[in-house]
C-alpha cells in the first residue's frame, strides 16, 4: 500500500527544493528532492493513518500558471491555491494534499485557506504552524540537543514566540560556532534531523497547532 501525497509549503527551507531542479508535477520525489517538512509530514501521516513511513510517497506539486513552484505568499492567494489544487486528470490527483504554511500573526489564516478550497475535490489538510514551521522544530528539546550535539538553554513555549522569532532562534542555535560559509548546510542538516527524529508527542504537547495537524490528518476520510 502506498499513499500519494503532495506537500505544499512556503519555502525551500521546508521542502528542500532549492538544491535540485524542480520535478514535473506528479513525479515521485526521490531523497534529494525532499526536505525537512517531507520527513515530518511522513512521520505524522504514518502515525495518524497507521501506515509505515515508507508507504508515504511524495509527488511534485502542480506549478503556478507561470511554470514556477508556488512559494510563500503565493499559497495565500485564492486563485493560485485553487489552481494548484486542481488536477485536470482525476488519476493525477494525489490521495492527500498537505498545505503547510506559517500563521505569521494571522489568527484566522487556516479558516481562510480552508474556505478558499472548500468545494474542490480531493482530500487535503491545511496546517498552519504558529507562528512558523520552525516553532515545531524547537518543540522537542531532547531532539534539538541531539541534533545540535550540545546543551541548549531552556526555552519558553515555541508557539508563544512572536512571528519570526522561532526561525531566528533556530538559525542562531544552528549557526553557533560555525563559519558563515557552513551555516546553510548546517541549518539544513539540523532541520532534517529534527524532522526525522523529533517526538511527535513532544511536538503535539508543546505546539497546539501541530496537535491540530495530527487531528486533521486522522480525520481525513479514506
Amino acid at each position, binding site marked *: 500500500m502506498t499513499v500519494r501525497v503532495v506537500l505544499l509549503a512556503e519555502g525551500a527551507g521546508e521542502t528542500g527544493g532549492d538544491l535540485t531542479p524542480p520535478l*514535473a508535477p506528479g513525479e515521485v520525489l526521490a531523497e534529494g528532492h525532499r526536505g525537512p517538512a517531507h520527513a515530518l509530514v511522513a512521520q505524522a501521516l504514518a502515525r495518524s493513518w497507521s501506515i509505515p513511513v515508507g508507504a508515504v510517497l511524495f509527488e511534485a506539486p502542480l506549478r503556478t*500558471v507561470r511554470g514556477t513552484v508556488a512559494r510563500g505568499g503565493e499559497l495565500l492567494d485564492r486563485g493560485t491555491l485553487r489552481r494548484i489544487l486542481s488536477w*485536470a486528470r482525476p488519476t493525477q490527483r494525489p490521495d492527500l494534499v498537505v498545505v503547510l504554511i506559517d500563521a505569521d500573526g494571522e489568527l484566522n489564516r487556516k479558516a481562510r485557506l480552508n474556505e478558499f478550497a472548500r468545494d474542490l475535490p480531493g482530500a487535503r489538510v491545511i496546517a498552519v504552524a504558529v507562528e512558523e514551521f520552525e516553532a515545531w522544530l524547537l518543540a522537542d528539546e531532547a531532539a534539538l540537543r541531539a541534533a545540535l550535539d550540545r546543551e541548549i538553554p531552556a526555552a519558553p513555549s515555541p508557539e508563544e514566540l512572536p512571528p519570526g522569532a522561532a526561525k531566528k532562534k533556530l538559525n542562531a542555535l544552528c549557526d553557533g560556532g560555525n563559519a558563515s560559509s557552513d551555516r546553510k548546510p548546517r541549518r539544513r542538516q539540523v532541520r532534517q534531523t529534527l524532522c526525522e527524529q523529533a517526538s511527535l508527542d513532544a511536538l503535539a504537547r508543546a505546539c497546539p497547532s501541530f496537535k491540530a495537524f495530527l487531528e486533521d490528518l486522522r480525520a481525513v476520510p479514506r
Partner: protein
Amino acid sequence: MLRGLASGSIGSRKVQIVLATYSAELLEYLQPDEVRFLSRQQDGSVTIEEAPVNDPDWRRVYDEYQQSLGGLWLSGNLGGVPRSAA
C-alpha cells in the same frame, strides 16, 4: 491567418496545419482539443497526451485557470513539461 487557412476562409481549400511550439501565448489561441502535449520519458520514449476535455471535471478545472490553456500547460497539468533526467 493560420486559423483562416485551417478553416478554408483563406485560400481555395482547408489546410491542415501541424505546429510545434513552446509558446504558452500561442496556446491561448487554440482550443484544448486541438493540442497534443509531448513528454520525453526517462527511457527516451515520448508520450503524447491531450487535454481530458471529456472528463466531467474538465470544465471546472479549465474555468479555474480562466480558460488559459497556456497557464494550464505551464502548471504541468497537461504534460509536455520537462521531467527529471534521473
